[in-house]
């Protein structure tokens, strides 16, 4: 089978500070500050993936960044993926020489597609997309999929009974 979940942690294609990924224990120790710094980059990427005025609910209205932040900072979440989410954002910012947040839509598209040409960037964008889709299509109990707009967009709705609490409170 050899499906290495952590294969995406391979440093292939990385150019900057993230070249030496911290060991799991070190990285897991203080992730929250690092996550805060990465959040602006992640939010910009999510806004590009799910823009206002598009045919899917937009990232901001769906509170996708908040969902992602709450999810990856929870102690039960896979520590390696949390580190990857943070480091991947840093790497993207570094590749774009710190200018990413000032990009217009065309420039952002080009930057993300450039990043996608590396295995590392491609895996990171995929992870951000997965977490964003979880936000858009998960139960509204998690604070996103506001007004079930995500479900309405795909004409598919969660089953009954719906959760009354988030999974960690079960």
């Amino acid at each position, binding site marked *: 089978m050899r499906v*290495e979940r952590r294969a995406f942690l391979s440093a292939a294609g990385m150019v900057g500070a993230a070249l030496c990924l911290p060991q799991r224990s070190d990285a897991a120790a203080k992730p929250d500050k690092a996550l805060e710094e990465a959040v602006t980059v992640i939010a910009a990427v999510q806004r590009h993936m799910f823009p206002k005025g598009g045919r899917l609910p937009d990232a901001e209205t769906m509170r996708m960044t908040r969902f992602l932040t709450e999810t990856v900072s929870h102690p039960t979440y896979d520590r390696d993926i949390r580190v990857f989410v943070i480091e991947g954002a840093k790497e993207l910012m570094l590749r774009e020489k710190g200018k990413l947040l000032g990009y217009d839509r065309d420039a952002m598209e080009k930057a993300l597609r450039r990043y996608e040409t590396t295995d590392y960037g491609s895996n990171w964008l995929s992870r951000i997309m997965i977490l964003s889709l979880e936000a858009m299509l998960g139960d509204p109990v998690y604070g996103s999929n506001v007004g079930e707009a995500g479900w309405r967009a795909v004409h598919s709705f969660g089953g009954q009974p719906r959760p009354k609490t988030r999974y960690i409170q079960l």
Partner: protein
Amino acid sequence: MKDVEFDAVVIGSGASGGAVAYTLCKAGYKVAVLEKGRLIRREAFSKDEIAYCRRDIVTPNLFEEYHVIEERVDGKWEATPSYESGWSFWNGNIVGGSSNFMSGMFHRMHPDDFRLKSKYGPIEGANVVDWPISYGDLEPYYAKVETLVGISGRFQAHPFEPPRSTPDFPQPPTKENAVVKLLDKSCQALGITPLVTPRGVLSQDKGHRNACYYSNFCGSYGCSSGAKSSARESLLIPALATGNLTLMSNTHVKQLHSDSKTHVSHAVAVDTVTGKERTIRARLFVVAAQAHESARLLLNSANRFHPDGLANSSGEVGKNLIFSGGGSGQGELHEDSLREISFKELMQTGYFVNRSILDWYFIDDWWEGKFKGGSVEFMFEHQNIISRAVKSRYGKERLLWGDALADRLTERFTKQKTVRFEIFNDWLPNDNCFVSLDPTHKDRYGMPVGRLRIEGHPQDVKVGSYIAKKCEKVLEKMGAKHIYSSVSATPPQNLVAGGCRFGNDPKTSVLDKQCRAHDVDNLYVADASFMPTGGSVAYTWTIYANALRVADHIVEVLKKGEV
């Protein structure tokens, strides 16, 4: 809790543990069921995809609890801890076990599955043996499962349908999506006989359990009506009602202590919440912890009386681990090319596809020859919303986002529905498929974790591939698009058996034909560990039936005061 001695301690609360506990409690014996997972009651289950399908809430966090999986890579055995690969064999570790989360496609094994070696002869590289019991020994218990645990269905005569002692199932089949009209017609045009799938899901109310309400989210989720025939609903709740059952959740058994060569005195258990250790005494012990973990427990219970592991004088504990061979495939039914039924009917949510094919259970092919084949289940792709969207996130070579993603999701969710098939064929037992104790990795209680060496037999893939081609033809006939199948030697996560074979010879088997350890008078293994071969169907019905058979024997042993 005061230190009491039970008549029986059952380790594990899944299908087999539940069946043993139910029978013994009904017979008036005091039973303790020790389950390492927590209790989730029916009313707490929901259809929360994030919780049940995307996080580890009903299986252990792999960083905290794991095993090591060994595979052959470029001719060398490579061992990887499951926290590294993300690949584990944990299943439904809560009260009721994985039966809470099954899809409930139930089939009996065929009489020839009990005499595979006699019928087909030896296969090179495979440790195939006949069972020490026959289909006739198990048939009354297959019948009992239908009424006690609850199976809905409709009997249809078929050359490979095992004989039965009752005319039909106690409940009619669950409701079916109109796609079965198209599927049936396509099968018939190809000379294939589709059969209604017997299902461990109630179509009618039964006692404290309500009929299926067709939630559209069945497999992988706990059932909120009690319709699914889980051990928790069908056996443990009635067992608790007798007042004879002490159900201890969050209780992990790390060792069984033997005080002589032939007697286990107590279980050493740990409260998984507090970490507090205690001993639990009983006249008799029944291991039902899921195949690979049952073997690990016996191996971890070695002491001076059993230096190679409890009940392991044969050296067979952990050997001949088996899974289910086979694979799966799928095709898409699109709105613009659908025949026989309306698109609206196809998109009706909740109802089952409910079709099985047994035509290839035994194969006699003019070109390929005669060999043991397998069974097939048809179903819709799981209706989980997030996972379907995640699968659709790529276009040609790159990630989709914005309106391109919207277009893809609209197509995927509103213009087509995917029909899948799953193939079940024998996973031939062999010398390179077993569980042992890992020499370095230990669990959080200080005990070696299981090390599972996994390798399939080439015949398994040959059989699966043969059947997959037939199934693809069915999908083609249905007018499906984008048809493909995947058959490999990678085992499914949820169908594990073997590791403590039963047999008549103590030198080549761990258990006798009643699933009592040859070496230890008051020790039984009641889960799928006993199976020397697995048949070509999902194991669940056989696990329930055999555990009920073993439990009847245990009742006799307790009555006679033999332990």
